[in-house]
């Protein structure tokens, strides 16, 4: 197990390096630089000076190593679009709203989705199942900005219960969180349903019934345990993936989160911020896959015991 984890950590380091090189090259392959904007024209001379002061005139590999050397020391540089702070300071300011939005959305949506999926699987081919499936399909096919608009229309405009936008007092968080929660709710409902049905159709479930176990014990001890296995591998990465919030929901509700910076850092050739955001996401996914693989191994006796038939 220790060896396995060490191997995985090594592969994470490799992934991280490869991603950083590719992103760095792609970023600089896109034509244009940070000072090519039209709203603030600068003379070529000044542009060259600015580029030189930021090291943008050096060969790419020098820039890359310089940047990565900084990253290893938690120095992600300064965002061009907001030179008064460091990239880390900007993340520290803009990430919390996204984290709250994404985290609360998943914490609310995922358990509800799991319950909905379970109900659908246990009552398969009844109105419960059809209703749950219809709900999940709607949740996945209606774009989240349409859901957001509906919520704003009903709860902010007609009923006037909640603010239509902004990120002030916690009650202003309600609508964006609800809008965002529909995504994990729908996804988890669908996934839970199919994972449960998969197990319910296994021959061993018939054997459990034939032994005279109560239906409750069969579902809660045996079926859920086995359905959890494929679920952990998908759920944790999804869970962590949401820590960056939703660009669309943030835009609809004017949440001052990270979402806007994903777009602006690309448009404005804000290399330092772009790199930092992508590296951060890469790292979170790598770690979440690692954790879910460890969980999977712990839940699965086939891997845990390492044994073979004999």
């Amino acid at each position: 197990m220790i060896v396995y984890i060490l191997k995985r950590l090594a592969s994470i380091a490799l992934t991280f390096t490869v991603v950083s090189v590719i992103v760095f090259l792609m970023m600089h392959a896109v034509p244009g630089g940070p000072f090519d904007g039209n709203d603030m024209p600068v003379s070529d001379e000044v542009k060259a000076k600015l580029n030189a002061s930021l090291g943008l005139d050096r060969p790419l590999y020098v820039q890359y190593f310089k940047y990565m050397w900084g990253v290893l020391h938690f120095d992600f540089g300064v965002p061009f679009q907001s030179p008064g702070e460091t990239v880390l300071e900007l993340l520290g300011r803009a990430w919390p709203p996204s984290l709250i939005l994404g985290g609360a959305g998943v914490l609310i949506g995922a358990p509800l989705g799991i319950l909905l999926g379970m109900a659908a699987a246990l009552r398969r081919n009844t109105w419960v199942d059809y209703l749950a499936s219809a709900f999940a399909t709607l949740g996945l096919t209606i774009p989240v900005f349409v859901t957001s608009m509906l919520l704003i229309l009903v709860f902010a405009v007609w009923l006037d219960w909640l603010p239509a936008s902004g990120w002030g007092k916690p009650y202003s968080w309600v609508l964006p969180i609800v809008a965002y929660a529909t995504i994990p709710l729908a996804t988890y409902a669908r996934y839970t349903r199919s994972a449960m049905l998969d197990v319910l159709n296994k021959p061993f479930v018939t054997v459990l019934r034939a032994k005279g176990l109560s239906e409750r014990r069969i579902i809660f001890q045996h079926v859920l345990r086995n359905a959890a296995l494929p679920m952990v591998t998908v759920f944790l990465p999804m869970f962590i993936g949401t820590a960056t919030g939703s660009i669309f929901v943030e835009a609809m509700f004017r949440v001052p989160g990270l979402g806007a910076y994903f777009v602006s850092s690309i448009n404005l050739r804000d290399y330092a911020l772009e790199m930092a955001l992508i590296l951060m996401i890469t790292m979170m996914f790598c770690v979440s896959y690692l954790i879910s693989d460890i969980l999977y191994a712990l839940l699965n006796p086939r891997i845990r015991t390492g044994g073979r038939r004999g």
Partner: protein
Amino acid sequence: MRLLDVVNLTVSFVQHEGVVQAVRGMTLHLDAGESLGIVGESGSGKSVTCMAALRLLREPPAKIAADRLDLGGVDVLAARGRDLAALRGRVAAMIFQDPMTAFDPSFTIGHQIVETIQAHRATAKAQARAEAEALLRRVEIKNAGGVLDAYPHQLSGGMLQRAMIAMALSCQPQVLFADEPTTALDVTIQAQILQLIKELQAEMGMGLIMVTHDLGVVAETVDRVLVMYGGRAMEQGPVQKIFDAPLHPYTQALLASIPGRVAGRQRLVEIAGASPNPANPPKGCPFHPRCAVAEARCGVEAPAFQTVTAGRDAACWRLQ
């Protein structure tokens, strides 16, 4: 005492494409301590009959009806959740064809036997574990302690089938349904498992229903045999009598199609023609399209399954 009493059982599966009539008027019975073999080609409705007796089929799509379906004196069709759970494992236990998929892969063998014991009797865990270990030793597993803590994937098919038998017998059932318990096993192990089941049946005085498509198995393990075809009982009676003088043309064809059957261990060889399609069964006797001695009325109305001589029943117009 009559342990199992089934009269005119029909089981159909309602599907999008239509209705599959898996069992069409089965009649069978089993007395305490008796052993009955159910033989028939694959698809004749043997498994569905057994599953229906324990109400193990999902309803819907399955639809079960019967004039009588009593197990251990309880009307199975009228029983609901809790009553059914009390019957299963305790009054009647079942072992299945494929031991490799019969255990929950996430729990040890010990856990799964212990939970069976605890489902039916208030037993302390340590006590149940000790009983489980004794059961595993009884089914001739040498390393009983080790198998108790093993996960299913760590054991061979033969070992798992032994463990399955131990689990089925853990609550001293009055009837054991064995649905082709050796079909998925190595030939060398098949005889051992059959011998074990036979021994345990005698020892515990329980009733046995041995489902098989292997006439050799029937000859070796049971007192009485019931021949199924197209979801119906064709003939039933004492093994020796049926082997010596089969009454029904299907049984006759079945026995004739086995070269050197006295040597035993021969699989059924297909009789000319196709077995009936349960989605569209023939009118009348299901065997008439393949029957060498069929008459006009055989294709019109199905003959009743009725007594021909004492202890022997058959469904054939020529015998009525």
